[in-house]
């Protein structure tokens, strides 16, 4: 069976999630590989969520938020624009290709942009292949939990 990437998408409620909805309503075709998790703001996305997604088997993670200046909470995405590059460095240090983590600004009216980004990332992850981490093996035997 061909490899189908598992991508987790954290989408902010006000812009990106609405943009995704627009893509759907507009019947714009996009790969089904992104599992969407809605947060109120991209600034709500704790780096721990992203690491956890990789730990639990995600091949890629994408965070989408409002364009700078458009954040519903004024400054949330300013934190995101620093967090994601920082986290890319961290995961690279762990031996995970930083291209598996992506940040994109997608507004409520950018349904086609949403689809484009999803398709592009799905292809990229397909080319990178499945992500196997040492911790995946450990999780099978994991008795105590955090």
């Amino acid at each position, binding site marked *: 069976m061909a490899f189908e990437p598992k991508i987790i998408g954290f989408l902010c409620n006000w812009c990106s999630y609405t943009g995704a909805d627009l893509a759907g309503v507009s019947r714009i075709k996009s790969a089904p590989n992104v599992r969407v998790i809605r947060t109120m703001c991209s600034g709500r996305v704790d*780096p*721990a969520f992203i690491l956890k997604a990789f730990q639990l088997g995600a091949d890629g993670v994408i965070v989408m938020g409002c364009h700078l200046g458009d954040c519903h909470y004024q400054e949330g995405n300013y*934190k995101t624009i*620093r*967090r994601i590059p*920082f986290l890319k460095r*961290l995961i690279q*240090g762990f031996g995970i290709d930083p291209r598996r983590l992506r940040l994109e600004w997608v507004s409520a009216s950018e349904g086609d942009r949403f689809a484009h980004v999803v398709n592009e990332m799905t292809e990229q992850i397909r080319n990178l292949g499945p992500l196997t981490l040492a911790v995946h093996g*450990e999780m099978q035997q994991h008795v105590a939990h955090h």
Partner: protein
Amino acid sequence: MAKPKLALYWAASCGGCEIAVLDIHEKILDVAGAFDIVFWPVALDFKYADVRAMQDKSVDLCLFNGSIRNSENAEIAHLLRAKAKTLVAFGSCALEGGIPGLANMTTKDDIWKWVYKDSPSTVSNNGGTFPQTHSTMSEGAIEIPEMWETVKSLDQIIDVDYYVPGCPPQPDQIWGVIEYILSGKPLPPKGTVLGAGEKTCCDECPRERAEKKLKKFYRPFEIETDPNKCLLDQGIVCMGPATRDGCGALCTKANVPCRGCYGPPPNVIDQGAKMVSALSSIIDAHEPEEIESILDQIVDPLGTFYRFSLAHSILRRVEKL
């Protein structure tokens, strides 16, 4: 009436936790008076055979320090879990892998190659003499434990009842825990972190904090710092925001940044993720280029943010490439 039985053991440890217990000074006599110490390799001559001969659950309290680095560490951990009623993960290594957990940034192969072959003082024949678990000498067979690929914390291999953090746990905190146990009061719910606070190290730190907008980071040797102002405000990476309180903020009081030895604060499972978040919130830039050049000044984020907790972090180890 027989005194309750106490055991202390060190796995892949440095001995600092044992010293911390002794640093309760004259109160150690109270401990010796209240408990029957049945196993403590640093101080008493009980051997592993003695522990194996004990009845299950006959040891009332076991303080287990050190991380799980090899097969012997794991074997004794399982053994003591069987023999002890209450087992406490004691000190940073047992809780989250500690400094030995930094070995999860490298591999057993790379460690062995350096130690037994490539280090400049090592004389090696035939490309290296590496340790064998079993050796047949002319007189007979001898063995040594197998070193594992990955360092683990104690609760990654056995069920742990309580946690006492710190590298080492501070003596006044240790005494507080022992005193509570000796009081006979009911123990808190299983899994509770004892001997520490419920906030972050920043809460104990006496330095003045201002609003943080950082455009530059410095390494501790690069500048002289103001002893009254928050180190992070001055551009020194300090783990205070991602570290549990309880130590008394000893390091920042000594004019050096916190490095996270009391482990993550409550409800934080990954010190690295927390520091990425915290530092990102205070970096004052939004142009991608400027952000990257500021991030370049934060050297070795993995080894700094996970200095004590790599083995217990979400990803646990660096991938073998």
